[in-house]
C-alpha cells in the first residue's frame, strides 16, 4: 500500500504547516485533541474495501490525491452569486467559503439572547470553555479515519448554542461553498451544535460548488440534544459531480429527546454520508430519514450507525434511493442495541428505484443486539418505475416526462412527508422537484446504453 504511505506524508506536511500557522490552536486541550487525532489517522490511513464499513465504497481516488488546505481569502464569492442558494425565512444564514466563515456574506438576523450562533473559529478565540465539554468528545476518531482527519484540522465551522427552553421557529442555514480549485484542495468544516434542555430548533447544512475542480470536503458535526429537546437536522449535498464529500453527523440524544436527521444527496461525485446517533437518554426518539438521487457516475454511500444505549428508545430509519445512469448507491444500516437498552424499538427501511440497467445499489442491514427484550425490523426493496403506472398516467393525457417526474416525486415524497412542515421542508421540496425534473428529462432510458461504461471512482484520481 505505497499510495497510503505517500498520502499520509502529504497530510503530515499539511498538518505541520497547519500547526505552525495562525490556524493552529494555543489551547492545550484542543492541541492535544488535534495531535491525538492526527496520530490516529497516521496509524490507520484511509480505509480500503477490505474494511467492512467501506466494503462498497472505494476511497482510493481520495487516498491517491495530494490535497492541500485551502488558502485563506482566495475564494471570490459575491452576495449575488449566493442569491439562488439562500433559504427564504431562515433565522440565520452563515456562509463558509472554502471552509472559512465569511461574515460579509452571512446574515445573523436578530436572534434572541438565548441563542448564540457564531463561527467555530470565533468561539475558540472568545469562549473556549463553552466548547471544551463537547468538542471532540462524541465523534469516534478511533473507528473512522475521516473523523480523525477532520478533528486534526479543526479550525472553522459553526458553533450553535441554544439555551434551555428556547425555541427557534425558523431554520439556521449553514451554506458551505467550494470555489474553483486550481489544484486539489481539501476543507474540514467542523460544527458543534448544542441544544440545551427543552429547546426546539432546525439546522440545515448545505454543501454547494461555485466552480469546479478537485475538492475534498470532509465535514463533521457534533449535535448534542439535551433532555426533551426537539431538533431537526438537514444535510443537503448539492456539489459538483467531481467533488468528494465525506460528512459525519454524530448526534447525542438525551432523555426524551426527539431528533430528526434528514439527508438529501442530490450532488457530489463520491459521497459518503455518515449518520451516527447515540440514544443515550431513556425514551429518546430518533428519525433517520434520507433521499439519495444519483445519475452519471455518482457514488452515494449512506452509512447509518444507530446506537441504542438506553431503555425505551425508538429509532426509525427510512432511506429512499433513485439511481440512474451508472450511479452507485449504498445503504448500510447498522443498529447496535446495548445490553441495558431494553424495550428498544428500532426499524429500518431502504427502498430503491433503479432507472437504468447500469445503476447499482448495495443495501446491507447489520443488527447487533445485546439486550433481550427489543423489537428490531429491517427491510429493503429494489425496483424500477412501474410501466403500468406510467402507461396509466399517459393514457390520461399526461406526457411521458411529466408522468415520470410524477412517479419519481411520489417515491421521493415519502421522505418529504416525514419532514415537519416549515421553511426547511419547503426548501427541500423545491430542490427535489427541480432535481427530479432534470432526471425525468434525461429519461427515457428505455434505450439501452451502448458502448463502454464511463470510468468509475476506483479508476479516477
Amino acid at each position: 500500500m505505497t499510495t497510503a504511505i505517500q498520502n499520509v506524508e502529504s497530510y503530515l506536511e499539511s498538518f505541520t504547516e497547519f500547526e505552525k500557522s495562525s490556524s493552529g490552536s494555543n489551547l492545550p486541550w484542543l492541541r492535544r485533541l488535534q495531535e491525538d487525532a492526527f496520530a490516529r489517522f497516521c496509524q490507520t490511513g484511509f480505509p480500503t474495501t477490505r474494511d467492512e464499513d467501506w466494503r462498497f465504497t472505494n476511497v482510493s481516488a481520495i487516498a491517491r490525491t495530494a490535497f492541500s488546505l485551502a488558502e485563506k481569502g482566495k475564494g471570490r464569492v459575491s452576495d449575488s452569486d449566493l442569491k439562488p442558494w439562500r433559504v427564504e425565512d431562515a433565522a440565520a444564514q452563515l456562509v463558509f467559503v472554502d471552509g472559512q466563515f465569511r461574515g460579509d456574506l452571512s446574515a445573523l438576523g436578530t436572534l434572541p439572547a438565548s441563542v448564540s450562533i457564531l463561527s467555530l473559529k470565533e468561539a475558540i478565540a472568545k469562549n473556549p470553555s463553552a466548547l471544551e465539554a463537547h468538542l471532540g468528545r462524541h465523534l469516534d476518531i478511533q473507528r473512522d479515519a475521516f473523523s480523525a482527519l477532520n478533528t486534526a484540522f479543526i479550525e472553522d465551522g459553526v458553533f450553535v448554542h441554544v439555551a434551555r427552553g428556547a425555541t427557534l421557529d425558523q431554520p439556521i442555514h449553514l451554506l458551505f461553498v467550494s470555489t474553483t480549485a486550481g489544484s486539489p484542495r481539501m476543507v474540514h468544516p467542523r460544527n458543534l451544535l448544542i441544544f440545551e434542555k427543552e429547546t426546539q430548533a432546525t439546522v440545515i447544512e448545505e454543501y454547494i460548488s461555485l466552480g469546479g475542480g478537485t475538492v475534498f470536503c470532509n465535514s463533521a458535526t457534533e449535535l448534542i440534544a439535551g433532555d426533551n429537546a426537539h431538533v431537526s437536522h438537514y444535510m443537503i449535498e448539492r456539489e459538483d459531480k467531481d467533488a468528494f464529500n465525506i460528512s459525519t453527523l454524530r448526534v447525542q440524544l438525551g432523555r426524551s429527546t426527539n431528533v430528526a436527521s434528514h439527508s438529501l444527496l442530490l450532488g457530489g461525485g463520491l459521497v459518503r454520508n455518515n449518520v451516527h446517533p447515540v440514544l443515550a437518554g431513556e425514551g429518546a426518539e430518533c428519525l433517520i430519514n434520507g433521499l439519495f438521487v444519483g445519475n452519471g457516475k455518482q457514488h452515494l454511500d449512506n452509512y447509518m450507525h444507530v446506537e441504542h444505549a438506553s431503555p425505551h428508545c425508538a429509532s426509525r430509519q427510512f432511506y429512499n434511493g433513485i439511481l440512474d445512469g451508472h450511479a452507485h448507491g449504498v445503504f448500510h444500516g447498522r443498529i447496535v442495541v446495548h445490553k441495558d437498552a431494553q424495550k428498544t424499538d428500532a426499524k429500518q427501511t431502504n427502498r430503491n428505484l433503479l432507472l437504468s440497467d447500469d445503476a447499482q445499489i448495495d443495501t446491507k442491514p447489520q443488527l447487533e443486539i445485546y439486550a433481550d427484550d427489543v423489537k428490531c425490523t429491517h427491510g429493503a426493496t429494489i425496483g424500477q418505475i412501474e410501466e403500468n403506472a406510467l402507461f396509466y398516467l399517459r393514457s390520461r393525457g399526461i406526457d411521458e416526462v411529466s408522468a415520470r417526474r410524477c412517479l419519481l416525486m411520489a417515491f421521493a415524497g415519502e421522505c418529504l412527508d416525514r419532514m415537519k412542515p416549515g421553511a426547511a421542508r419547503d426548501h427541500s421540496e423545491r430542490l427535489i422537484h427541480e432535481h427530479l425534473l432534470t432526471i425525468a428529462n434525461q429519461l427515457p432510458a428505455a434505450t439501452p446504453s451502448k458502448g463502454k461504461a464511463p470510468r468509475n471512482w476506483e479508476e479516477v484520481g
Partner: protein
Amino acid sequence: MSLLEIKNLHVNVAGHEILKGIDLTINAGEVHSIMGPNGSGKSTLAQVLARREAYQVTDGQILFDGKDLLEMKPEVAACEGVFLAFQYPVEIPGIGNTYFLRSALNAIRKYRGLEEMDAMDFLPMFREKLKLLEMDDKLINRSVNEGFSGGEKKRNEILQMAILEPKLAVLDETDSGLDIDALRIVASGVNSLRSKDRAMLVVTHYQRLLNYIVPDFVHVLVDGRIVRSGGPELALELEDKGYGWIEAEAKAPASV
C-alpha cells in the same frame, strides 16, 4: 367521416398474433359492444386503441377522427379524445387523486388550446362528478386507486371519464368484479355520458352489463377476428347459448 375506422388490424403480443384482421367502424353517438370468450383478443384491441406500446401492430390502419391513431403516443391519443377505462386500474401511491385528475384535464385542455383550470374551479366540478358516481368525498384526498375496493376502482375510472370528456370511451370489462349495486351506479354513470358527439366501445365477457348499457351494435370476437355483428339481440343469444356454437361456426369454414 366516421369517428373510428379500424381496417385489417393485425397485432402481435410477445411474438404471438392476437388480432388477425379486425375491421370496425364506429360513428359518433354510437355505442358498440365487443363480446367474446377469454383470450379472443378483446382487451388487446382496447389496449391498442389506448396506444400501449408493448402491443405491436403488424398490419392495418386505425383512423381516429381522420387522423392516424397508430402514430400517436398514449398521451396524444388521450388528448385527441380516446379514453380507456382499465380492466385493472393501477394503484399509484403518493400521487393524489385530485392532483392527478387536474393534471390530466389540464394537459388535455392545453392540447386543445383551452385555458388551464385552477384548483378553485376544478374542485366544485370534481365534487359534482363524485356525486354522479355516488363516491365518497374522502376520495378527493386519497392517492390514485390506493386501497380502493374493486368497485371503487371501476367507479373511479368512470369518474375520470366524466371529467375528461373523451370523444371515444373504451370500457374494458368495466363490469367484471362488480356487485349489482355497483354495476347499476357505473352503468348509470356511463349512460349519463352518452351523447351524439361521443362514441363508446364496451368490451365485455358477459351480457349482464348490456342490460344497463344498451348498445347499438354488438360484435363477437373469436380468435382475433370479428365473426359476427348484429344488434343488441345478438348479446342475448350469446347469453342463452354461450360462446361454444359461435366458436364452432367460426372454425367450420376452415375445416371444409
